[in-house]
């Protein structure tokens, strides 16, 4: 492979032991975080004796050879995940383009609101859409029959319904990931395209889309993996139709007595193949082209004047927010004030009991605080760690960077509920007494959200021209100084987006938390799910709203503090 002079200099300098040592240390640490529980998971998947015995009594491949019985479930999973991913990425790209590159009215406000679907957990969304569009009791269908219609107009209890709800809530993740990349894009290429006579649509498809491909692919890989591991929407909407995906099937396996961990672990491990395929495709595509748009030449992101198209674009944004946020939140709010959710409730059906119960529960009082604390810690520790890992993989030329990426994507390949078993077994035997504490949940969150952080930040890293760092190096800047004064400032939009994503993802995390919580380290989302299971939709609705309000309040405080800090810094 031929190298440029600057690459030669950089390679020569990379032998400096400082960054190399730190890289190995951080990369190795992160790999251990992932591989340690994965080893226990693989061990469980090969267990053919007593399913509860730890360590296994005997090893074999029976759990894998027996997976043929569940082929239809794997098919269901891939079908839902693929459709939901396409929908979510289309939503993310279109919204990202409208809000980053056009002069749509109320752009700043809409951009803030676009994060809202992510605050609204998929569980809350699924509960809301079940109330809205169940074939019998759904409000829409009741209205339809009230108007003289027969049967039902829409049925949310189908694979399309599950994909729709999942896409609505992961669409905002795709938006944040793709939007961060679009914001960091030098608009001169789009302008050049338009100067040469290309229309807006052609420019978007031929210039914008290829340039943001790493971000789009990163979002697609991440969202697809999230969809594979999605649990609550499939549980709420799939079970009434006897429609199972891998996560809901596994949940049954690990919840019944005796728990069938080996089969569940084998199912989870089998998803590695799918995820490895996705990561391989992603790497092949990004290594085949150049996506640099941030070079040494100064630029200021500018928006296009789209003329009268501003209003249809505004309508698209409002419509998305209506179905993803406004309608579900209003539905849940409505349900939370009722004994039994009805389309036309009498006065006797209205109550404050659900809120009184929710606020009296330890699960809400201490768990909410724990969740916010963990969210803050996960995001604040995770961003430097994941930012550095992204840089390590895509910039450092460290041998084995590709292997490290595959390793770090591992948690994405396993539904978190199953991964949590691996973590539980792994950290139970760890000599430090962290099992059952918030420390264990912090480690778990940092592990399972590695792919989210990596995908978000790497999309932006790939857009930064290496020559900027090399130039600083040529000027004598040390590795640390280059990182602080060149790389990190350029990464800032991506880092802020990733911080937000990690914070919210941690606060709403379910799969890993449900098994790793201790009696004094409870978090909120599992409690909401449990309330839906064992108490009522209405109590779960009240708890979900309290969670949403707490997250919104915490974020408002953080934004205010951050703004003040920036102002104080004189920026």
């Amino acid at each position, binding site marked *: 492979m031929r190298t440029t002079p600057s690459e030669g200099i950089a390679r020569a300098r990379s032998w400096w032991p400082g960054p190399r040592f730190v890289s190995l240390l951080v990369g190795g640490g992160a790999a251990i975080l992932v591989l340690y529980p994965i080893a226990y998971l693989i061990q469980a998947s090969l267990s053919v004796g007593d399913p509860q015995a730890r360590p296994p009594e005997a090893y074999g491949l029976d759990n894998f050879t027996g997976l043929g019985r569940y082929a239809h479930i794997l098919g269901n999973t891939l079908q839902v995940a693929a459709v939901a991913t396409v929908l979510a990425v289309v939503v993310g790209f279109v919204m990202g383009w409208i809000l980053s590159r056009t002069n749509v009215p109320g752009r700043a406000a809409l951009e803030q609101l676009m994060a809202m679907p992510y605050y609204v957990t998929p569980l809350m969304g699924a509960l809301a859409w079940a109330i809205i569009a169940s074939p019998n009791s759904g409000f829409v269908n009741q209205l339809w029959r009230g108007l003289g219609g027969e049967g039902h107009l829409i049925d949310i209890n189908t694979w399309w319904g599950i994909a729709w709800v999942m896409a609505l809530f992961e669409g905002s993740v795709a938006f944040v990931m793709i939007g961060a990349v679009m914001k960091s894009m030098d608009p001169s290429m789009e302008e050049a395209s338009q100067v040469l006579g290309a229309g807006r649509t052609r420019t978007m498809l031929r210039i914008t889309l290829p340039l943001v491909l790493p971000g789009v692919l990163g979002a697609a890989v991440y969202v697809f993996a999230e969809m594979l591991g999605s649990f609550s929407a499939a549980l709420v909407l799939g079970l009434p139709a006897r429609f199972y995906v891998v996560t809901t*099937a596994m949940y049954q396996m690990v*919840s019944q007595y*005796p728990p069938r961990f080996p089969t569940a672990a084998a199912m989870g491990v089998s998803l590695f193949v799918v995820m490895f395929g996705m990561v391989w495709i992603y790497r092949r595509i990004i290594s085949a082209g150049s996506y640099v748009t941030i070079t040494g030449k100064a630029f200021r992101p500018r928006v296009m004047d789209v003329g009268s198209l501003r209003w249809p674009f505004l309508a698209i944004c409002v419509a998305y927010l209506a179905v993803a946020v406004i309608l579900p939140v209003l539905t849940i709010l409505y349900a939370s004030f009722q004994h039994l959710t009805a389309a036309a409730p009498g006065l006797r059906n209205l109550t404050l009991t659900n809120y009184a119960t929710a606020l009296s529960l330890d699960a809400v009082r201490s768990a909410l605080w724990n969740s916010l604390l963990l969210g803050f810690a996960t995001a604040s520790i995770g961003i430097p760690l994941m930012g550095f890992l992204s840089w390590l993989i895509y910039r450092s030329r460290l041998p084995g960077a590709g292997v490290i990426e595959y390793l770090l994507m591992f948690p994405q390949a396993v539904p978190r509920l199953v991964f949590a078993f691996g973590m539980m077994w792994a950290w139970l035997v760890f000599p430090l007494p962290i099992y059952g504490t918030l420390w264990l949940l912090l480690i778990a969150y940092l592990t399972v959200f590695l792919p989210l952080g990596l995908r978000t930040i790497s999309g932006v890293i790939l857009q930064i021209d290496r020559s900027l760092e090399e130039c600083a190096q040529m000027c004598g800047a040390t590795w640390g100084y280059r990182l602080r004064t060149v790389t990190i400032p350029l990464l800032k939009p991506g880092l802020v987006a990733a911080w937000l994503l990690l914070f919210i993802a941690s606060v709403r995390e379910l799969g890993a938390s449900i098994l790793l919580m201790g009696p004094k380290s409870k978090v909120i989302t599992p409690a909401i799910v449990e309330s839906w299971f064992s108490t009522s939709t209405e109590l779960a609705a009240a708890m979900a709203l309290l969670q949403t309000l707490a997250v919104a309040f915490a974020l408002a405080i953080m934004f205010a503090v951050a703004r003040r800090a920036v102002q104080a810094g004189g920026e």
Partner: protein
Amino acid sequence: MTERAHTAVTRRRFLKTGALAVVATPLVARATRADAATKVLDFSTNADIAKAEAEGEVVYYGHDSEPGIAVLLDAFKKDFPKIKTSYVRLQTGALYAKVTAERSAGRFGVDVLQLSDISPAIDFQKKGGWEQYQSPEYAAYKPEYLSTPPGYFGVPGVGFAGIAYNKTKLKPEGAPKTWKDINNPAYRDGVSVKLATSGMQHSQWYILRKMYGNDFWQEFAKQRPKGFDARAQLFDRLAKGDDRMCALAEYAGYTLYQEKGAEIEFVAPPEGMPAIAIYIGVVNKAPHPEAAKLFVDWALSKRGQAIYQNQKILLYGSVRNDAGPMPTGKRLADFKLLFPTDWSDYVASHPLFVKEWNSIMGL
């Protein structure tokens, strides 16, 4: 729906057959004579109360709903304000998996364990997981409601299930009246039950299979029933008309939803209603052993049983000899309850149940 009872509780037969050949490793029973027990409030305990209060905490692992556990622990805390409570809540299968995993790794963080299925309770006894503690409150229970040998776990309550239907979807004349009626094709695609995670579902499957033969559930499979994890989901759907009939309607769930004003009706089939017990005990190597003993004594006492039986979020029928009626005015004796008659056969049937039930559920 007021069938006079011959509560067919026949655990004794099982105990006599020694089917619990489980014979736990002979642990040294720290049995203490009931007359040496301390009287506290209005119950007896062999726990050292001063030590329990010095321990200052009890860690409870249970399967009930969050509000249900909260009600239980708050009541205990009210009686013993110096003892803080904390808990972990999971479904029995996952809860038991967590406990056994913790113990196999040498982590002993739980004081009191409550399970809703006899199989893991017996397995835990085999593994030496229960502390053998002779609660003075056991004197108020028949032997069939205690472990064999006594001291490992007791039964703080019993749950049972009949049939329920939505009154707006089915007229009384078209409603099910016997267990055989759940296979009526008129209800097809409108029937709900629980998933294989449920101990109550196992009990119903086992009892009706014995009663009507092995083909009964294969016939039921033609109804394309929908399976759910918890009774709240079953009644939520039934109340809203998403299902017309619930073939595993727990009485406790019915009363909660009836109170909410749901248009549902409960049917107690004349053949009797499948029932299950819940099991509670002190865990071996508990971090707060005296507080754990005190909690178990309290839970099995009249005070604790008043919570288990009278709080509608729990509504477990008490099997104490001196138990009063439930808030509905009914006593357990007012219902014809059906328990498995051969417990070893019942426990052994579980793998077959899971396989058959998963297949019926389309899993």
